[in-house]
């Protein structure tokens, strides 16, 4: 009997919400907006963090770059053999890559060279190597491009091939052989993969040189030790380990989330204004109504139950609406506006698909940040009035 939901109380609560249409509408509107903002920010953050983590996982363990006068220079391919000699190194590959600035679209492509007989230093390149015939790609002077690159090229009417402008001003025509599929969108979006020979031609890189060398280590614990050994052999190099990269990726990202922390605080602030407004007291009609209910035999907990239903229905409705809208906004419409702020570090301005991450924790967090606070803010002032002597309230 005690636990049975009193349907008349629920009815009364719904009635109470509908009776004050404009006030209820305002509360639902603000509440929904805040839930929506909060959840969207969390959803986007989660998706990007997921992308980022996956990206960081695919980063090479060690990158060796030649440094001259504080600037990055091409490194001698011969170094690969010497590095392979170091105990603990399981593989070393000379990479040939660069950024190609496509003026028409105002974006940078990352152009990466791979070779048939090399071990690929990235899983996604492994996939390309198995999916496409690399000797064919080489022979036909073609390339495999990321989704974003393909879209950007399409926009400039390059459908079958693309003309790269070489440093001497002449054109190099490269065919588009296919689309690059990677584990993460962040990684593949601006990437073009082609044979090293083609890249050397486009960027004018000598046969004996490479952009940098990536090193694979069997035991990750030994990375610091191997880094110092390479440094000893090649003092004129900068050596970057995956740990360093992780930190710098994270830095870019955390800076972005700082902006959102600000937004988040503003939302919370607004929310607390509503709460403050509510808890600063009830209107005289609201007080009187509670007094009347008490006078005709409602107990304090009958009144509070009713207020609970009332605030729960309105806040849960708004919460659900906000979460629903945010799901649609982030995952169906891919978070227009907000996404640009977050994914600013991707140099390519093309589409980037937010992976769907169903994160109960976010839903719970937003729920507990809003619904119970609102319910408490409704119940506490009602409780104050309900515990007064009924006679005082209705006089």
């Amino acid at each position, binding site marked *: 009997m005690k636990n*049975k939901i*009193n*349907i*008349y*109380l629920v009815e*009364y609560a719904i*009635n109470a919400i509908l*009776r004050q249409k404009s006030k209820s509408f305002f509360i639902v509107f603000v509440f929904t907006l805040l839930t929506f903002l909060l959840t969207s920010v969390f959803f986007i953050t989660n998706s990007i963090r997921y992308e980022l983590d996956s990206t960081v996982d695919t980063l090479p363990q060690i990158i060796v770059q030649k440094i001259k006068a504080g600037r990055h220079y091409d490194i001698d391919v011969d170094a690969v053999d010497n590095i392979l000699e170091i105990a603990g190194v399981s593989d070393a590959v000379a990479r040939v890559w660069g950024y190609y600035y496509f003026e028409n679209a105002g974006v940078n492509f990352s152009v990466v060279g791979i070779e048939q007989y090399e071990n690929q230093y990235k899983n996604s390149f492994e996939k390309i190597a198995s999916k496409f015939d690399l000797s064919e790609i080489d022979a036909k002077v073609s390339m495999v491009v990321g989704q974003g690159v393909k879209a950007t090229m399409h926009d400039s009417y390059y459908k079958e091939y693309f003309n790269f402008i070489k440093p001497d001003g002449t054109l190099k025509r490269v065919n588009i052989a296919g689309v690059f599929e990677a584990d993460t969108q962040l990684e593949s979006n601006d990437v073009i993969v082609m044979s090293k020979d083609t890249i050397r031609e486009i960027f004018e890189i000598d046969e004996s040189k490479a952009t940098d060398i990536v090193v694979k280590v069997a035991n990750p614990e030994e990375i610091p030790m191997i880094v110092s050994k390479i440094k000893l052999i090649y003092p004129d190099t900068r050596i970057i380990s995956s740990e360093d990269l992780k930190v710098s990726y994270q830095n870019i990202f955390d800076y972005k989330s700082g902006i959102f922390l600000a937004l988040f605080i503003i939302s919370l602030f607004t929310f607390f204004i509503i709460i403050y407004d509510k808890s600063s007291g009830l209107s005289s009609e609201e007080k*009187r*109504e509670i*007094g*009347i*209910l*008490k*006078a*005709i*035999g*409602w*107990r*304090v*907990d*009958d009144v509070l139950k009713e207020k609970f239903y009332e605030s729960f229905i309105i806040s849960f409705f708004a919460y659900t609406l906000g979460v629903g809208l945010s799901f649609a906004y982030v995952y169906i419409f891919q978070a227009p506006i907000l996404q640009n702020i977050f994914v600013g570090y991707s140099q390519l301005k093309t589409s980037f698909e937010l992976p769907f991450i169903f994160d109960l924790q976010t839903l719970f967090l937003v729920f507990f940040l809003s619904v119970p606070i609102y319910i408490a803010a409704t119940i506490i002032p009602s409780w104050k009035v309900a*515990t007064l*002597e*009924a*006679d*005082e309230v*209705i006089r």
Partner: protein
Amino acid sequence: MIELKNILKTYELNKNDKVVALDNVNLTINEGELVVLKGASGSGKSTILSLIAALSKPTSGEVIVDEKKISKLPDNFASVYRRDNIGFIFQKYNLIPTLSVKENIILPLVPLNPPANEILEKLDKVAQMFNISHKKDALVRNLSGGEQQRVAIARANVNDPKILIADEPTANLDEKLSLNFIEILRELKALNKTIVIATHDPLFFDLDFVDREIQVHNGKIVL
């Protein structure tokens, strides 16, 4: 039986100032009795009614209803006491204007969570008895004063209380409606309810079915 014993009721206005609303009031009202409390404005009539209904507590003294010390009841028990025993017709009716007639009348039943048919039965019974059935779905704020009072009476009776209390029931009514109320009162008296009315309306004086008239003056009962 309602007993008021040595009641003192003061209201504190501020630290140094208080009003003595009732001063050493002793009063016994028997079951089935209809009592009219008379007296000038500010004499303390409403205060007596709210003590009987446990809407407020005496500063000292005791209110005993059917051997129970009403004046000592904790708030929640006072609510239950009102719900089970008291039908109060307030001077300003105290209806909820934005609710319909029907919703107002069933309000005292809501905490009991009775089956739907029981609610409808009780609603129909009092709505018919007090001639407001035809307006069941109208909003109370759209009703005339007389209609609002009939809703208030219906609500006070929906729980079939033993004790009915009415504070200045004819203060807002014209003579015709006032006489109408007196007829209703006669019917209620015939149902053997204990009825306490506070009024200074002369229409209530010397009515054949009124058992006793009690004069209240300056917070004291004068016989």
